[in-house]
């Protein structure tokens, strides 16, 4: 203990850490009937940290070339001690992270926490969700298996529909005309360097905004929050968050042990696409909607119309702190609340229907 005290004293003398400790000691988290929603952000962060740790371990053996990628993952899951566990946790944690991020985003939206003065937190969070999906899309290709190869071909093909720059964007993503080893190398670069760098910076900003502004209390729950004693962030909330993280870890361990992530067959660019190619589950709501569109809508290509509509919807979602003018004054619009429920219902219904094979 003396060593710790001495270390603390040394650091405090040099870095003046006492104000930070005081801030942490006085930081509190409001309590109300929906305060469970505060745990999703932390849970998403936990899964992200798992991703970083397992990702680094996978990097020790993974080889990002079309010739060796599949074999290296095969080597990891069959020969490397606990390689199967690391790879399976990495895959499951990626999916749970996106699920948790979606839950976090919708709970924030439906509780109206995006309102002024938390616009920057909302925007940074929105960008983080896009980055998480980018992680998923780029990481999906890395094992270089059949499903990933053809799903990436379909996925990247969609960007070619973007007016004016579609062709250039397609070549930029693929590193050529088609999905090849060049695409794999490129996606690997995005997945382990570009995206982590941007994500880490954005997470730091996102957390800084939250710590600076504190937790938001919805207007309808203000009375309840005032009536109940808030809990201290350190150590009470941190311990509670710890319990949630442990639950997340238990879920990961169980999923990895009982449902090891499949590797499939090595990609063969000259083979015909297997039937029923689908993207990862978090893209299904868009994928299925695009499939339902007719070939042409008012003379414009159906897919282009769909992608335009999704882009517009994403923009509206992003700008909601500005568009929902009442929220700035603490009176959020019922229309935007309804829009949130509608978006949630659409995503859930289309995703589940696609997974159940209802949509053909």
């Amino acid at each position, binding site marked *: 203990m003396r060593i710790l005290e001495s270390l603390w004293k040394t650091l405090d003398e040099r870095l003046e850490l006492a104000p930070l400790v005081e801030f942490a000691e006085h930081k509190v988290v409001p309590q109300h009937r929906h305060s469970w929603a505060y745990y999703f952000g932390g849970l998403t962060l936990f899964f992200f940290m798992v991703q970083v740790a397992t990702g680094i371990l996978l990097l020790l053996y993974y080889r990002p070339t079309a010739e060796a990628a599949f074999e290296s993952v095969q080597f990891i*899951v069959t020969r490397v001690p606990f390689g199967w566990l690391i790879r399976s946790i990495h895959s499951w944690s990626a999916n749970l992270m996106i699920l948790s991020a979606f839950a976090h985003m919708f709970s924030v939206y439906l509780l109206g926490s995006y309102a002024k003065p938390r616009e920057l937190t909302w925007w940074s969070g929105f960008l983080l969700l896009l980055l998480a999906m980018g992680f998923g899309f780029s990481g999906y290709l890395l094992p270089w298996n059949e499903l990933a190869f053809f799903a990436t071909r379909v996925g990247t093909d969609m960007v070619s529909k973007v007016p004016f720059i579609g062709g250039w964007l397609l070549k930029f993503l693929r590193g050529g005309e088609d999905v090849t080893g060049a695409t794999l190398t490129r996606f690997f670069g995005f997945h382990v360097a570009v995206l982590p760098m941007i994500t880490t910076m954005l997470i730091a900003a996102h957390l800084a905004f939250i710590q600076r502004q504190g937790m938001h209390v919805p207007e309808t729950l203000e009375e309840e929050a005032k009536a109940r004693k808030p*809990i201290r962030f350190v150590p009470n909330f941190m311990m509670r968050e710890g*319990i949630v993280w*442990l639950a997340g*870890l238990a879920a990961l361990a169980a999923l990895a042990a009982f449902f090891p992530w499949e590797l499939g067959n090595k990609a063969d660019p000259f083979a015909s696409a297997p039937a029923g190619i689908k993207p990862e589950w978090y893209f299904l709501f868009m994928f299925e909607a695009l499939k339902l569109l007719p070939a042409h809508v008012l003379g414009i290509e159906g897919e282009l119309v769909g992608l335009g509509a999704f882009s517009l919807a994403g923009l509206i979602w992003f700008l909601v702190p500005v568009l929902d003018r009442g929220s700035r004054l603490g009176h959020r619009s019922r229309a935007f609340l309804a829009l949130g429920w509608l978006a949630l219902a659409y995503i859930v219904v289309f995703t589940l229907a696609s997974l159940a094979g209802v949509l053909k």
Partner: protein
Amino acid sequence: MKTTPLFALAVIAAATAAAAPAPNTVGAPGKHAQDTCTACHLALDDQRLNTPAKLAEHDIHHNQGVTCAGCHGGDPTSEDATVAMDPARGFKGKFDRQAIPEMCGSCHSDAAFMLRYSPNIPTDQLSQYRTSKHGQALGKGDTNVAVCSSCPGAHGVFQVSDARSPVYPTHIVDTCGRCHADAALMGKYGIKGTEVAEYKQSIHYAALVNKNDLSAPTCKSCHGSHGATPPGVSSVSNVCGTCHVSQRERFDLSPHKDAFAALSQPACESCHSNHAIVHPLDSWIGVGPNQKCGDCHSAGDPGAAAAGTISSALAGASAALSTVQKRVDLVRRAGMLMDEADVKLEDAHQAYIMAQVEIHTVTPSRVEEKTKAVLAGTAAADKLAADAEAEIRYRRAGLFISLCVIALAMVALILKVRSIER
């Protein structure tokens, strides 16, 4: 049927008439023929006369510069019908059916002429035809039999490799069937007329139409095309052995070879039949009901004993393959990668196929040698499956311990939170 002097004269006349086409009737290879024949005939209302001209559009001969006059004679450059179809200019009109082989052969048997179109084109069709049942019957004056125009067509002829051709592998069965499925017509020749229907029940036809395997045998693969004739008893194994080389080699080593020859019994056909060849089963081996060996052997004789040994060896190998395959599949469904076991099972499966090939030697020791290889492969795969099962148990035990530790940590945290919030 007797060959009449009149018919002999006709054949001689046709043979005399059969000579390479006049230079002005054949254009440059690769260039579609230009002639006045098609131009006039297309304008005719009589369907009988305009159809050949319509078919000329995609006819291989026309596409290679051969005009109508290349076969029918006459002057293909004259717009005057009386000149174009003047017998003095070699016009022959519609061919007598008996003259068709010689007429086609006038070009197709001329190696120098055919070299213009392809360096490797066969030129022995006419000589083969003369040896065929069709050619022999035609020579005897039977005009019901197939001539050249019966199969690939007279006008609008496609290359054999063209999927539209009546002699393309997927069509040839029905082309032969136009006559050979006609029981009334075939009855005149002592043929059942059920051969096409039987063939369509066979594994060969299934491979052709279901798997689109164009190498699967059709009528011409066994009977020949231009030289079509039924394979004789002594040559059946040679015909089947063209594709089933290993089986033929084993059969030639077996005591069955001499025994079947002595009995004038066909080799492969005795067990597998001819047209309605189905997938052979291990259960055929034995002298019991519906078992093939029982056709010649009976219980207690050395052949029946050998069949019993072979049957037991195969049954043991088959059971081992099936059992281990199921175990490996179960482990795979539990999420384990079983690539190595798959390789061992594939080797075992190959050895099993070889054991089935060795049946043709009817020598139990040769079959058992292969079934031992099957059992070695399945044992190796089985061990890998057992190892994988142990790994699954280890993982689940590890998971259970981990979950216990996590649960303990959660309980400790919950208790701590309660104590500090009390």
